[in-house]
């Protein structure tokens, strides 16, 4: 680079996509060609993945963050970050896998044929490699890999499936406790085995026949129509037999639902020419996933099964947060399924051993600081201003002329804000800003300013950055929900941007966390701790997070386990006024009420021993951090819930992006060069994966870096060229 002045890149927002872009642009290989400044609202990085440390060092998240074993780009960058930090430290550094725990246990809840809820659980076999490994070691995108993993998966699902009732222990249908002398028990067991045996032998038959049937139809070189007709007749007969069996037995029903879904996907892949269509799986994105399964012969039972609902719940795919309006583009769903089941390495899920802010964004913050990246906290973007068309030279593309910010707070002496705190030797983000570093910090604290609220517009100053003077390129990494508020000029003048913000919808989310003084077994949950989804709304997803307790700062009587719950939060009929400063608190109060109702009414299906005789939740199970750490008397009864944590993620930039049918084609790629000094980054962009998640955001950030400096090569962005 020599003495040449570096190119100035302004990165707006500090979420996964922005951080990935900054990490790519400041790689040592670029020899300082790019100087990056990250402008961040409030006091912490992370966007939807930010977390904070509250009372007793408790980790408080936006929601449940579990990384999938197929998040190769995200893991690769994070591992490189950890390596870089280790290399720069004098003492022994920490490894990335000190902070990630493989989780192979996945559960889903569904309605039992006998009433109530029944929980399906499966242990997924370990897969070769670790997420983020170089692809030449274990390339997960090859056909042979799909086949090999497909075999392992089906073996797991069909032969290793177990169902459990909430009353504890395995389903009585499958493993009763009757002794050998109990003839009634033996008869029950025999009857169960009869159903199970009949189903299992028929299930494999149907699966094999269907596979052959589909493949034969697609390959003209094996024209055995007579055999095909025979097989179709057999399949139809066996299907009829199943339908009679599945009505009464949960275990059989679940097995059949899985088989049915696999069949429908195979049939659909052939029927819609997905293996040859140049659009890949995008060719079916105008269908809703369930509608597409229905078109390909899936039964209504399978379409309504927990195994289908898992996808919708994991992707928060409910229009306007309405549980009765699930919607997800079929191609995105199938791509996600393929990658989830067939491309994971190590384990399908990886849980963090501390907050996502602590495990992900604090190390990135430290690594980027060492690379010379500048951070400007408390900067709220107000407007992306374009150059006036009259200023453009002939043939010159439109560009960003200025960035207008509100400075929410200024630091004492104009010093850089130091955002991290130490919790048990780990650099962490606090749940609130360090007011001592702010000008008039005490006053700001008294005013209870909410720096992350869209509706709290109080500010200390304004700032305008100008092209060529303050920046050369812009990476716009805010959430898509914020675009109408900061890019009104572009949206008004550019029909593509207008369509994108209209069609690519988002949804608000809600979450709560409780710290419990009893372990899961004491609560009546007898199978291994894991992640369960497809449960009752509004908190259909639960993850056991007891493993994070050691990372928190409990002194006396630490919790025995921690439970995170989350899902969508329905939109209100009318948007709040821009000046409605109390809106987030009102929505948070709604979440609190939802959580209390959920604990009183629904959690007993998972934790039968967490309720009183009256049916009310045993509030004394909740650990009050004030009592535990400060020796205060614990808060009594239902008010004990107020010592726990809940959140309503209603800020436009916090809203989760959806992949609705017919919407993906309106996404704009970070590679788009309509504005030649601007690129966009976020899981809402056209980044190939096109579903809201850490991996999509990371891919998008890498694409944004490529748009500016042609690095990384598109072929090096893992899975970007996936069908």
């Amino acid at each position, binding site marked *: 680079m020599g003495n040449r002045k570096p190119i100035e890149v302004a990165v707006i927002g500090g979420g996964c996509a922005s951080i990935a872009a900054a990490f790519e642009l400041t790689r040592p290989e670029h020899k300082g060609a790019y100087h990056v400044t990250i402008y961040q609202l409030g006091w912490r990085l992370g966007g939807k993945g930010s977390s904070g440390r509250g009372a007793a060092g408790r980790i408080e998240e936006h929601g449940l963050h579990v990384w999938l074993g197929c998040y190769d780009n995200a893991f690769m960058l994070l591992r490189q970050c950890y390596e870089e930090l280790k290399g720069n430290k004098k003492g022994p550094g920490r490894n990335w896998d000190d902070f990630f725990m493989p989780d192979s246990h996945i559960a889903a809840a569904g309605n039992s044929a006998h009433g109530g809820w029944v929980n399906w659980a499966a242990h997924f076999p370990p897969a070769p490699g670790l997420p983020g490994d170089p692809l030449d070691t274990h390339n997960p995108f090859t056909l042979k890999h799909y*086949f*090999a993993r497909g075999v392992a998966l089906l073996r797991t699902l069909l032969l290793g499936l177990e169902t459990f009732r909430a009353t504890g222990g395995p389903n009585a249908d499958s493993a009763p406790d009757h002794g050998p002398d109990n003839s009634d028990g033996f008869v029950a067991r*025999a009857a169960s085995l009869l159903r199970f*045996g009949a189903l299992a*032998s028929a299930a*494999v038959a149907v699966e094999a026949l269907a596979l052959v049937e589909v493949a034969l139809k697609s390959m003209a070189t*094996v024209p055995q129509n007579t055999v095909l007709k025979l097989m179709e007749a057999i399949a139809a007969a066996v299907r009829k037999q199943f339908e009679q069996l599945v009505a009464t037995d949960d275990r059989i029903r679940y097995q059949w639902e899985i088989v049915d879904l696999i069949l429908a996907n195979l049939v659909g892949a052939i029927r819609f020419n997905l293996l040859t269509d140049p659009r890949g799986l995008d060719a079916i994105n105008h269908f809703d996933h369930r509608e597409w399964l229905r078109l390909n012969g899936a039964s209504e039972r399978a379409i309504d099964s927990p195994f289908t609902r898992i996808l919708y719940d994991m992707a928060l795919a409910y229009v306007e947060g309405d549980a009765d309006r699930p919607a997800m583009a079929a191609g995105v769903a199938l791509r996600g399924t393929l990658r989830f089941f067939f491309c994971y390495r190590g384990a399908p899920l990886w849980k963090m051993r501390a907050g996502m802010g602590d495990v992900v964004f604090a190390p990135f913050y430290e690594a980027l600081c060492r690379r010379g990246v500048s951070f400007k906290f408390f900067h709220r973007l107000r407007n992306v201003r374009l150059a006036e068309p009259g200023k453009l030279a002939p043939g010159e593309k439109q560009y960003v002329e200025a960035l207008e910010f509100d400075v929410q707070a200024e630091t004492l002496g104009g010093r850089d804000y130091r955002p991290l705190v130490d919790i048990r030797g780990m650099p962490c983000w606090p749940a609130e800003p360090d007011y001592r570093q702010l000008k008039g910090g005490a006053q700001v604290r008294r005013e209870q300013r909410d720096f992350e609220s869209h509706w709290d517009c109080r500010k200390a100053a304004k700032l305008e950055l*100008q092209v060529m003077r303050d920046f050369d390129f812009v990476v716009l990494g805010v959430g898509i929900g914020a675009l109408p508020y900061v890019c009104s000029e572009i949206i008004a003048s550019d029909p593509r941007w207008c369509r994108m913000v209209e069609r690519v919808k988002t949804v608000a989310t809600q979450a709560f966390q409780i710290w419990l003084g009893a372990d899961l077994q004491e609560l009546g949950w007898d199978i291994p701790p894991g992640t369960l989804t497809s449960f009752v709304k509004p908190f259909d997803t639960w993850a056991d997070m007891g493993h994070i307790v050691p990372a928190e700062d409990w002194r006396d009587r630490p919790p025995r386990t921690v439970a995170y719950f989350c899902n969508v939060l329905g939109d209100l009929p009318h948007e709040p006024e821009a000046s409605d400063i109390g809106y987030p608190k009102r929505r948070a109060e709604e979440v609190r009420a939802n959580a209390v109702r959920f604990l009183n009414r629904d959690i007993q299906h998972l934790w039968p021993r967490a309720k009183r005789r009256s049916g009310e939740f045993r509030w004394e199970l909740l650990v009050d951090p004030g009592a535990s750490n400060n020796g205060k008397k614990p808060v009594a009864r239902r008010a004990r819930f107020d010592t726990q944590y809940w959140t309503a993620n209603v800020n436009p930039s916090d809203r989760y992006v959806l992949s609705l049918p017919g919407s993906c084609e309106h996404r704009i790629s970070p590679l*788009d060069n309509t504005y030649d000094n601007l690129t966009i980054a976020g899981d809402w962009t056209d980044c190939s994966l096109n579903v809201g998640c850490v991996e999509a955001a990371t891919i998008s950030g890498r694409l944004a870096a490529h748009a500016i400096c042609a690095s990384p090569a*598109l072929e090096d962005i893992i899975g970007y060229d996936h069908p």
Partner: protein
Amino acid sequence: MAKRPSSKKRSRRKNPGRNGPRRSASEHMDRNGDGAAQVSKTVQQAITNMVQMSSTVIEEQIRAGQAAAARMRDGIVNSRQLNTDVNLVIDNLVATTKDVGATWLDLLSIMARSIQSPGPAGPGAPAHTGTSQPRTSTQTGTSGGAATISNIKPAGAAISAAPPEIVVTGRGVKKVVLDLRPHAAGFVPIVRELLASGQNRGLSGIKFRLSAQKKLVLMVNVPRGQAAGTYTGVIVDHGTNHPGGTVSVTIG
């Protein structure tokens, strides 16, 4: 607003080489080292095996399972007693279930392994380096009363793309399908014995020869008394024994 300094030129992004991902699954497989030709051939072979096995094994198992179920139902309803017969039925039922499941999974494992094994692009064979995709040429016709389909998909431009002629002699042949995938110009095809489900005797009178015009011809000679069925087999290179195609003959 400050005036733009005239001495400095505004930085502009270059247009990227492409604006989106490559989505085609077949291209994707090629890029990741699983040549489509190889996949197609091995999958077809495995599927043929599955058809043969499933038509005999699975139907039989379903019937056995249903019969066992019926017997056991009767036993439960009539006696509700523990007895040796019931235990035996249960054991057989579970064993049947396991056997069928294992058989099917083994089949898929075979498919997976066959895909992993070195294919036509093995040692000594030219790699796919060009960007142009090989195309399949097909010739259909009749010979000796049988329908014939001859496909050829050469791995490179230097290899002849003319589908071999198929000449059928003998009675009862309904269809012959040849799928040839030469991976090098020096590919000399030979056919192993063809096998059919449930038949003890294979079909061995299948040979390649060069015509007077130096064109490749597949000679299918079916001896008298050959049992009906679909006989399939693999074509390999005479020199390297690498597989380079399949042939199937339907009799009866």
